[in-house]
């Protein structure tokens, strides 16, 4: 049964000190919304400033988009949960998470929406290794990503090739769950959230997207960090998979729904 088409879409951009790259991303989105680009008629943008100490908030407000200004740095997971709460409480149908550094091409958002509608999926990942673009990872980072993909494909009962992508769509059934319980742990916003979603019976799928180089700021990983990433990714995966089905999660979802 195909889901209802998304009519109210919220593009959530978690941003931590991204005053350099953010304006480009916002301008691109504004341009897309003005044209017949395949975006839903009601597409809003929300920038979640994750305790930024630069002009991220001002830059976003100057461009007229909604801003959540977190008083402290919570990490991507914390910023996204705030975004999901905002979307759920204001009655949006779907959330697309977009990086503030310009790596994700907003023009791929209609592809995510199309995949959600066609495959009745609740979570759609914009995957970087699935054919489009030239994004590659090397060494231990690549190995870790491969293991994560194999294990999570099994958990989600579908083929996933890029489980650490931050370019994702969450549909209406995923919103209450993510609004209530989106993990703030390291890799919680990627690996653990997928485990959470598939355990809640949500359908996950992916579409290939091309990645672009960052438009400003510094990349967050070097070779040593890649090795540490391997270890932490494995730990995050093992913990997420061994975690008991949480009664706490159900309570929080119920509380969030009662608002």
């Amino acid at each position, binding site marked *: 049964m195909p889901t209802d088409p998304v009519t109210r879409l919220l593009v959530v951009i978690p941003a931590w000190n991204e005053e350099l790259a953010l304006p480009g991303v916002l301008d691109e989105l504004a341009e897309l919304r003005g044209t017949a680009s395949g975006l839903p008629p009601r597409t809003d943008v929300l920038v979640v400033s994750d305790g930024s100490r630069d002009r991220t908030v001002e830059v976003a407000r100057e461009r007229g988009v909604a801003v959540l200004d977190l008083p402290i740095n919570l990490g991507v997971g914390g910023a996204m949960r705030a975004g999901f709460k*905002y979307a759920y409480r204001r009655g949006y149908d779907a959330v697309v998470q977009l990086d503030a550094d310009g790596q994700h091409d907003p023009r791929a958002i209609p592809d995510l929406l199309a995949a959600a509608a066609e495959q009745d999926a609740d979570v759609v990942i914009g995957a970087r290794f699935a054919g489009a673009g030239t994004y590659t990872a090397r060494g231990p980072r690549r190995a870790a990503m491969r293991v994560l993909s194999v294990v999570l494909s099994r958990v989600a009962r579908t083929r996933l090739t890029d489980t650490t992508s931050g370019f994702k769509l969450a549909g209406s059934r995923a919103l209450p769950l993510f609004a209530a319980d989106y993990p703030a742990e390291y890799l919680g916003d990627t690996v653990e959230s997928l485990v959470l979603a598939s355990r809640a019976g949500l359908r996950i799928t992916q579409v290939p997207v091309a990645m672009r180089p960052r438009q400003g700021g510094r990349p967050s990983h070097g070779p040593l960090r890649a090795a540490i990433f391997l270890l932490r990714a494995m730990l995050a995966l093992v913990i997420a998979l061994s975690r008991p089905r949480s009664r706490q999660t159900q309570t929080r979802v119920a509380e969030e729904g009662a608002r």
Partner: protein
Amino acid sequence: MSVYATALGISFLTVAAIVFLMRSRRIREKYAAAWILLAVAVVVVGVFPDVLATVARFLGVQTPINLLFLVGVVILLVVSVQFSVEISKLEEETRTLAEEVALLRRDLEDGLAAATGRDAAAPPSTPTPADAPDADAPPDQP
């Protein structure tokens, strides 16, 4: 002065320090309990050294003082794990509060913008967005 007398002195000091901190409300009772229990146990061992020797013999520990060290290390371990649990809980609570603060600030901005009829820092919207889901129109469009 025997080692037991030294232990006795240290544990009295510990109890005194904990009680002092509790009186000035700088630590809460639930954290103080563990330390007071520990200090009392050391007092008992200090006053009756034979208790330690008897328990050590019963458990098959050759040198009684090693039992003391073992128990001490285990207690410290338990207390630090308890602290990790408490810190994690605090972080989760802080995180929830931070999210709610940001969401409330946003609601407030919406409300102010609607009340003053001007676009302050936010796109046009109504004060109660939950009741009026179509309130926040795409901000960039006229």
